[in-house]
């Protein structure tokens, strides 16, 4: 049994084998693996006795359930209206420059993925970004880069 299969098995044991458990299991895999691999989705389908197309169809509905490999730290910059008005484009440019990747990509060392997201719920403090579950409001291009540099320093 591979590491992912073991993770899925444990999660299914914990959450139960009903369809209602699909979301928490998918979320747990994303938390640990940063994305849903083919192997993971096959394992989940097996545990819950549903089809793989069903697992994939469900995952692909949700923005945070990536089926493409992502970096250890996933940056999601809010792109919706007020964050747009308050300068998210500058933040993204600064991040692209710092990380030397384009929006939507992952750094070659697998440390960062740079993505956009729809409204993150911090419209009064935009621009805002999430790094994994952590929120960073009231960004400027400079402060965004400083935050990334902190992450870079952590191993």
């Amino acid at each position, binding site marked *: 049994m591979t590491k992912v299969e073991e993770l899925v098995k444990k999660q299914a044991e914990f959450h139960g084998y009903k*369809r*209602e458990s699909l979301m*928490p299991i998918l979320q747990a895999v994303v938390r640990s693996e940063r994305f849903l691999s083919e192997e993971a989705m096959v394992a989940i389908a097996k545990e819950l006795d549903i089809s793989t197309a069903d697992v994939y169809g469900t995952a692909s509905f949700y923005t945070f359930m990536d089926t493409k490999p992502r970096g250890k730290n996933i940056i999601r910059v809010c792109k919706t209206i007020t964050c747009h*008005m308050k300068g998210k484009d500058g933040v993204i440019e600064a991040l692209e420059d710092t990380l030397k990747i384009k929006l939507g990509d992952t750094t070659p060392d697998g440390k960062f993925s740079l993505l956009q997201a*729809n*409204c993150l719920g911090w*419209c*009064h*403090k935009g621009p805002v970004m999430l790094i994994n579950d952590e929120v960073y409001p009231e960004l400027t291009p400079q402060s965004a880069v400083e935050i990334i540099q902190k992450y870079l320093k952590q191993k």
Partner: protein
Amino acid sequence: MDNKIKKVDLIFENVDYLEVLERSFKRSQDEIILDIIDSGLRGRGGAGFPTGLKWKFAKNEEAEQKYVICNADEGEPGTFKDREILTQVPDKVLAGMALCGKATGANEGYIYLRGEYNFLLPSLLSSIEKFHDQLKQLNFDFTIHIKSGSGAYVCGEETALMESMEGKRGEPRNKPPFPTTAGYLGQPTSINNVETLVFALMIAKEGPTKFKEMGTFDSRGSKVFSVSGDTPKAGIYELELGMSLEDFVNEFGDGDTKAVQIGGASGFCVARKHFKETVIGFEGIPTGGSMMLFNSTRSMFNILNDYLEFFEEESCGQCTPCRVGCQQLLKGIEAVKRGIKPPSYLDELQKLSETMKLASKCGLGQSAPNPFNSIINNFREEIIY
């Protein structure tokens, strides 16, 4: 604060919620519900369904298992008050859920928390643990769980939320049946916005009169507003309902406000010339709390473009008017802007938006054309030129 804007402090006030619950648990289900009905409280998520009625429907259903759901899938752009409520007064939310459980006969509750608010999980879970112990002491059987979203705006729609809770794609269901008849796992379910639950608790605490006396006939009580955009006072405010938009702008504007989007991306854009006659409330323009201000430096084309892009991506995609309609509105304004389509094409699109309103399966598709229509009506020249 301007005296025409009345600030209220019910939601964030610290109260002895256990005392309220202890008292409520001794009352009958009907007594609790009658108070809520009497208060005139309407859902604070945006749709504004009378809360007491919703509870009554759920109560009247006979079922072995009923559920209470707290809708914390706050995804409407411009709305961020539920996050603040869950941060500052989580116990009041939990108490509101237990109150609803008592009133409707449910012994299980779920908080559906949007994935973007995952950072709230640890503190919420410890609040729930503490709350469970407190309920034990009150001898009340009610368990609360959290289910997380994963980034899908449409899951704020109540039946989509339940589909998501059931481990499926968050696609809205056909209604009827309504959730109070067949909700989560097919069982009677009362689903309420975070803020609504806290107001219900406050009405149980103080009786319906105080709440009823605030606001207007159609819009009783107060409401938490999320203020953002071109304003020096961006933030969260609890205000009495029924104020005019002019008073609101006088208080929160930057002196150069040209338009206010009331009710988020799915709401309405009001131009300066209409500020005076526009009432914020169910008799005027209702809102889940989102108030976005735009000053004269903003391009309404860009704003509309952002809204439509949002819907094009966040539509669940299952029904034709919404899935294709949103794409057509977005592509349509671009085509008019670039001269590919004549300005009169906007009139065709306004007819299309009427179809979207009438024929879409759920509230998302029915309200997605709102910003389009109101911006075209008020700022047509900004879209064309």
